């Protein structure tokens, strides 16, 4: 839970940074739902599995990363040598 962190306020700081990344993704043109933060301790294996399942379903619903798709097409055409972001 927020503030209940091995590194004291570490997860509160992490939440701010995740919010920053979500905002940046929107500006870039990607869905902010591609990044998400879950609060849990290392002893909560069941919750971790549940969160992983939830995130997988969420990402699957959004669909593939359009950058990855676009890059693959370009790579096939041999027009772009940039690596995937």
């Amino acid at each position: 839970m927020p503030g209940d962190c091995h590194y004291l306020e570490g997860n509160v700081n992490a939440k701010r940074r995740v919010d920053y990344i979500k905002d940046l993704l929107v500006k870039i043109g990607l869905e902010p739902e591609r990044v998400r933060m879950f609060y849990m301790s290392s002893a909560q294996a069941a919750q971790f599995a549940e969160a992983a399942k939830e995130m997988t379903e969420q990402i699957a619903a959004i669909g593939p990363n359009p950058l990855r798709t676009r890059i693959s097409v370009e790579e096939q055409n041999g027009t772009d040598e940039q690596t995937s972001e």
Partner: protein
Amino acid sequence: MIIAEQKSLEEMKSLIGDAHKVLVVGCGTCVTVCFSGGAREAAIVSSSLRMASKLDGHPQEVTDVTVQRQCEWEYLDEIADQIKDADVVLSLGCGIGVQAIAEHFPDTWVVPGLNTSFMGLPTEQGIWAERCAACGDCILGLTGGICPIARCSKSLLNGPCGGSENGHCEINPEVDCAWQLIYDRLNKMGKTEVLLNIQPPKNWKTARDGGPRKIVRPDLRLEDEEED
């Protein structure tokens, strides 16, 4: 240090236009410390522009490099080849860095990625405040080390004005009254008699009001660089 803020990604995209090769240049000094234009920020901006351009359907080749100081020719020389190879350079330096690139590379189109804000310091992590207005004639010795030029909204030399209320400025209750700060500090140090010296009007010729400024130090000049 010089404090700057990043322009929006939208404005940066507009500034670089449809250039194919874009070089984002970070600066390792002031803007690194205020988290607006250092190596980390240059990499993030570069990556963001690269991704955004691909999503827009017009992929741009965006790379980044950071020099120790954009405001000195020697450091810019180290990346001369990369600068000359770029269609446009997006500088994440302060306004001085942008102009240094423009001056040193006359054939290069350079645009700013930052808004240079002021000279100040971090008062807390993530908060920066103005402290110096570079007026060119420092009076901190008369004001207990607190600058009324930079910190009083009216730059008063003999304050406070009538708008000071409970230690705050009338323009914004979140702004400290600089003259209250000055009085409190002098009082604490037993030096309030300093305030009895009424300051005459300041000669602003040494500030921006006197036009662009320049300092020449004959003792530091090199013979072969001396002007006629």
